């Protein structure tokens, strides 16, 4: 063990122990006395650490914490973008929401959208992670290629979707028309069920790379001896997948699922740009409802109430996630 390591507070030894026991610590102690008149070593380091993260803290408070609290406050008012003043109206916005039938429908849409998107991307992510884990020839190329959707701009994806599912000229629409799933010259984006299905499919295409990477890292971390032991016991490949791989990936899956639920449930860009929430509100989910209430009808108090309700559900997830990956803070 390095005495200086302890000095930096790594292994929880008290300073006195280190100071007394180690020669090198003595060395540092003497340098310290020679060089710093005002502050001793520890105070100086602490102060420096605080200075280093001060911008971070300030930023988090002003642009994350304040907005979240401000949302909470706004949701209790009748604030409107077009008016300067607003009144405190208690829980009226929430009451209005709960009696609004559309809110229920849009919540259901959010649930469908999130559920199928997350399941899809986790399954696909795991499958492809196993593929790039086994693949030896061209492995890095395959991995690199499969990561590309991670950075394709949502707007580009939206315009591709609109183009290939265009009723008249779209190639995918043509395929669907040929196999008889939809009528001639029709676009699946114009059908209530079809639009949601297409959007979920595109969203899975867009977002599987992240789970794939994380699963890949987790797969590499599984102790090979487990597989060897299973092999000796006569397990086939499916059995070792079912009884070793899956249980070993349980925690990774939980954390990933939470993260992806939070991001998918609040993901706005794709749906907005492809269908704008239509046809007939069949792809409107809560983020689009928030957007429409704030910049369509300007009722930001009402919109805040929706985002708080959505936020409360996600907040539980976030807390759980932070606790689960708590060893992140070592």
């Amino acid at each position, binding site marked *: 063990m390095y005495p200086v390591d302890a000095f930096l507070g790594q292994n929880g030894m008290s300073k006195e122990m280190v100071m007394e026991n180690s020669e090198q610590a003595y060395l540092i102690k003497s340098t310290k006395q020679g060089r710093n008149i005002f502050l001793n070593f520890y105070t100086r380091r602490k102060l420096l650490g605080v200075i280093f993260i001060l911008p971070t803290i300030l930023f988090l408070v002003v642009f*994350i914490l304040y907005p979240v609290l401000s949302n909470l406050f706004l949701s209790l008012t009748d604030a409107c973008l077009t008016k300067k003043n607003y009144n405190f109206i208690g829980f009226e916005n929430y009451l209005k929401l709960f009696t609004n039938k559309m809110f229920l429908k849009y919540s259901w849409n959010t649930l469908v959208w999130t559920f199928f998107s997350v399941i899809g991307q986790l399954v696909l992510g795991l499958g492809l992670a196993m593929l790039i884990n086994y693949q030896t020839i061209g492995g890095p190329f395959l991995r690199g290629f499969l990561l590309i959707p991670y950075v394709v701009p949502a707007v580009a994806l939206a315009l591709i979707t609109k183009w290939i599912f265009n009723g008249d000229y779209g190639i995918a629409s043509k395929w669907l028309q040929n196999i008889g799933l939809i009528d001639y010259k029709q676009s699946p984006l114009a059908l209530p069920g079809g639009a949601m299905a297409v959007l979920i499919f595109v969203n899975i295409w867009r977002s599987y790379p992240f789970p794939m990477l994380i699963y890949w890292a987790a797969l590499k971390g599984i102790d090979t001896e487990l597989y060897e032991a299973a092999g000796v016991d006569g397990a086939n490949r499916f059995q070792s997948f079912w009884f070793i791989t899956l249980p070993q990936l349980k925690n990774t899956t939980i954390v990933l699922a939470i993260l992806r639920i939070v991001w998918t449930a609040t993901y706005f860009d794709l749906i907005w740009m492809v269908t704008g929430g239509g046809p007939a509100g069949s792809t409107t989910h809560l983020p689009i409802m928030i957007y429409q209430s704030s910049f369509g009808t300007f009722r930001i108090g009402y919109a805040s109430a929706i985002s708080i309700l959505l936020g409360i559900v996600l907040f539980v997830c976030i807390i759980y996630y932070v606790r689960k990956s708590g060893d992140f803070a070592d």
Partner: protein
Amino acid sequence: MRIRENIMKQTKIYNKPNLLRNCVLGLISVFFIGVVGFPLLWMVVSSLKPATELFKSPPTIFSDTITFEWYLDAFSNKTVVRYFINSLLVATGTTVIVIVMATFGAYGLTRFRFFGRKAVTVAVLSAYCIPPIMLMIPLYRIIARMHLNSSLFGVIIGHTTVTFPFAIWLLISFFRSIPRDIEEAALVNGASDLTIFFRIVLPLCVPGILSTGILVFILSWNEYLLASVLISQDSMKTLTVGIANYISSTEINWGVIMALGTATTVPIVLMFTAIQKYFVEGLTAGAVKG
């Protein structure tokens, strides 16, 4: 090291020469390369087709003639050029601000011990989970109050908000991977804390910082929601907002749109390919631990 050994072992176990297995894996790989590549390829191909081919039914995969007319069309429009410049400025500004703050922040959080350190780390992690849609209204009000909604600074602030937690999160894992021993050696030899940071840690972290920077650039370049909300002036819009306006209009000029989409996507994909190795390392090193 242990992971590397595991890979070696796993490869040995599963890669007994087996023609059938290799063929099946190869086929699956080709299938997924097709699924991932087709939409992007289709965009590029469409942007190079003349109008007669573009609106042919049934569509042809490769057209006989290649034309750059849509690109010329798109970039002869001054507004489009303006959008490009705006996006470039916003993404660069965001990257600089985020990287400076996140580098200091991540270093402070990984190398110093002080009261509240853990709380800040947890706060960063939580901030990472807070979606832009929930920050949209308050940010809009803050920016409007500061009278920044007709300049690019408003969007830069917005993009900083959504990219900063991710950047600091990645950088923390990069800093963790740099062995402390070097810094300790320097400390024992009498280097000051700042010397250590600027002369030893920063040079070692250049790949990590650079790739995080490029990633922030990409995220900011791709961002749509906040950019569309925080800018009220047409000439200040970013590329994503501009394109989104084109595709939501009733009369869509598909050729130009495909050219714009290609011009937006290709540089980003190339940049990402360049840093991908570091991105994979950073994300898989400490990221989501079970």
